[in-house]
């Protein structure tokens, strides 16, 4: 699980061009969206949906469904685990 989270953080930084972030800057429970946390936006959400499908074979057809899954690195990892 912690390996998965580490991997996710790396992928997020790379895919979303979070140039000023290191893996250690992102806590498992940091909010990905909203002002308190990484402050990602709806374009990032679309990128995360692509990432989930490409890297983990998980399809999210409805962007609204993605909201709960994409709360934090922890929730993303939980969801991926549950699908494995």
């Amino acid at each position, binding site marked *: 699980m912690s390996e998965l989270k580490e991997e996710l953080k790396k992928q997020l930084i790379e895919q979303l061009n979070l140039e000023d972030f290191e893996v250690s800057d992102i806590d498992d429970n940091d909010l990905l969206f909203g002002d308190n946390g990484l402050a990602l*936006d*709806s*374009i990032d959400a*679309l990128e995360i949906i*692509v990432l989930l499908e490409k890297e983990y074979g998980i399809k999210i057809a409805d962007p609204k469904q993605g909201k709960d899954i994409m709360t934090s690195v922890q929730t993303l990892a939980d969801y991926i685990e549950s699908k494995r």
Partner: protein
Amino acid sequence: MNDSIVVTGIGVVCSIGTNVRECFSSLKNERAGIEPIQYLNTVHKERFKLGEVKRSNEELVAMLGLSHNDADKYSRTALLAMLAGREAMQMAEASNGAMRTGVVSSTTVGGMDVTEQKYLKQADHSYLQTHPCGDSTRQLAHFIGATGYYTTLNTACSSGTNALIHGVRLLRHGIVDRVVVGGVDALTMFTLNGFNSLMILDTEHCKPFDKNRKGLNLAEGAGYLVLEKEQDANHFLCKVPGFANANDAYHQTASSPEGNGAFSSMSQALEMSGLSTDDIDYVNVHGTGTNNNDLSEGVALNRLFGKGKVPQFSSTKAYTGHTLAAAAGIEAVFSVLAIQNDIIYPNLNFEEAIEDLELIPNTKVLEGKGVNNVMSNSFGFGGNNSTVIFSK
């Protein structure tokens, strides 16, 4: 600077017809053009329905009377532009023969239809000549013999109306005596995949302004108007008393929940026209069928006209699909036809109103009531919102 501007010619090609007569007949008979993919080269053939112009490039070349050997010189974008542009000019020709004619066209992806077929596959890069947005405009200008001034706007899906706005400026300052304005886009694998990556495509026939709308259907086409000053025109189809462009400044691709940009472009256009909200008989809405656009545009309509007082409105994109830069040009042609024929088109596929908005579009062909003033909306990425008003 306040010379009255009139429309003296119209031309159109899209999924419901290759000229004004065919399109008008489809509109009256509720025939939509959104169908399984026939022409576009894509792996998604089975997955999406598109509003394709039902002609191959070879057929378009023949319709234009061009030599078969020259077919490679033109992108599909240029061919569509030339077809609709020629029709508009032929209608306007009855006016004044020897005038300086300008062209202000618009397109979002220019000659991408050619580029995407050859890119990374061909060592000779001469195909890139048709890539720039300005190429289709130059081809159109040469084809109709208008080489005085031509230019191209690219403000995404509001482009066609912005072309009109720039065109009117050119007329009023005497830079041209007559100007062809509008837009064109050919379907491409690039835009199909692009909009798909944004998750705003409906795999079925789109349902603008419906509670259960799922997204838009991409499409292609071209629509042009010929504009002149009223004092220079021998005859005209209708007037263009108002128009405006405003920016939503909210999000790169999404519209604000309050519909700010849409509200300001509509209200500024109305102000310029000197008309009041009661004078508008029909609104040809942008109405793409995406969750975000229709909600935002609906809120703006309610703000401008007042809840329960919004005039007859419909999105003709359920007929044509969303033709991007061509949308404003095509819908301008439909708006002119609405005025000429006192007709209001239905919003196909509508079943249930969006919650809270209480907005019910017109769902049947309405004839016999006077249509004097029509408002047409076109909104695009980058928060770009434009509105134009046509009057009898």
